[in-house]
């Protein structure tokens, strides 16, 4: 199924959770924040939130800044 992640179309397996997606992308779930369709997903729900065709995700993390 197709998702939009950080503005880019991305393919992932149907039936994936957010945690599955992070694993596929090799991202440490403790270091990112995820927004799905403009709603923040609490970290403890990453393993329970199933993704659906067309979902729009933002995956962000901290970088240096003033």
């Amino acid at each position: 199924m197709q998702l939009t992640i950080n503005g880019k179309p991305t393919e992932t397996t149907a039936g994936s959770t957010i945690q599955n997606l992070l694993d596929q992308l090799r991202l440490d779930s403790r270091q990112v924040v995820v927004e799905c369709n403009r709603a923040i997903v609490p970290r403890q729900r990453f393993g329970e939130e199933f993704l659906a065709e067309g979902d729009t995700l933002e995956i962000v993390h901290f970088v240096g800044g003033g």
Partner: protein
Amino acid sequence: MDTLTIANRTFRSRLMVGTGKFSSNAAMVAAMEGSGCEIVTVALRRVDVDNPHDSILTHIDREKYLLLPNTSGARDAEEAVRLARLARAAGCEPWVKLEVTPDPFYLLPDPIETLKAAEILVKDGFVVLPYINADPVLAKRLQEAGTATVMPLGAPIGTNKGVRTRDSIAIIIEQAIVPVVVDAGLGAPSHAAEAMEMGADAVLVNTALAVARDPGAMGQAFRKGVEAGREAYLAGLGRQQERAEASSPLTGFLHN
């Protein structure tokens, strides 16, 4: 002991450090350690999913430093609120350096959107530290809205020009009921000292440390500048005057 209290937290250091633009994480950590700071700012950005690398958090000791996420990149109140909430969801304490800078050339903060975002974030339980132009009326309105500090700029971000907004900052300090943190444009320890001598409660520095040949040593230099300025403020500076006033006695000269 002279301490700085913001919201419910007390700090020994009056120097906050930004973590942007350093040539390496080691240089950033050296600057933080040299400066003696207890508060460091960070930004939120999209992960590069094709080329993920370590989060900056792996290099910052959270026991030692309070993370102050900023809302840099926000062009209006809505984007700033969204960024603040994302930062809180990352597991940070609900502190935010509120920045709304729609102008890409001077990065000057939008006062109307900043006030709007501050009102929303204060109601939402955030400790809000707003980055503002040195506007005493805006500073007052933000304090009335419940912000934990005001952070007037000395000069535009990254310009290293020093406290160019001196007269307005003096009014903000005179009227403040919360700590005043001079942020942006401080390029040398003497600039930081100047802000502190004026009675600012703290300063925030980033570029001056990040671009230094030796960021650790520059962190130390800024620490001393901040301490010197603070001590001079507490000790009471002499007033400026036009005419000379002799320091030596005016009697007992060898003539007459």
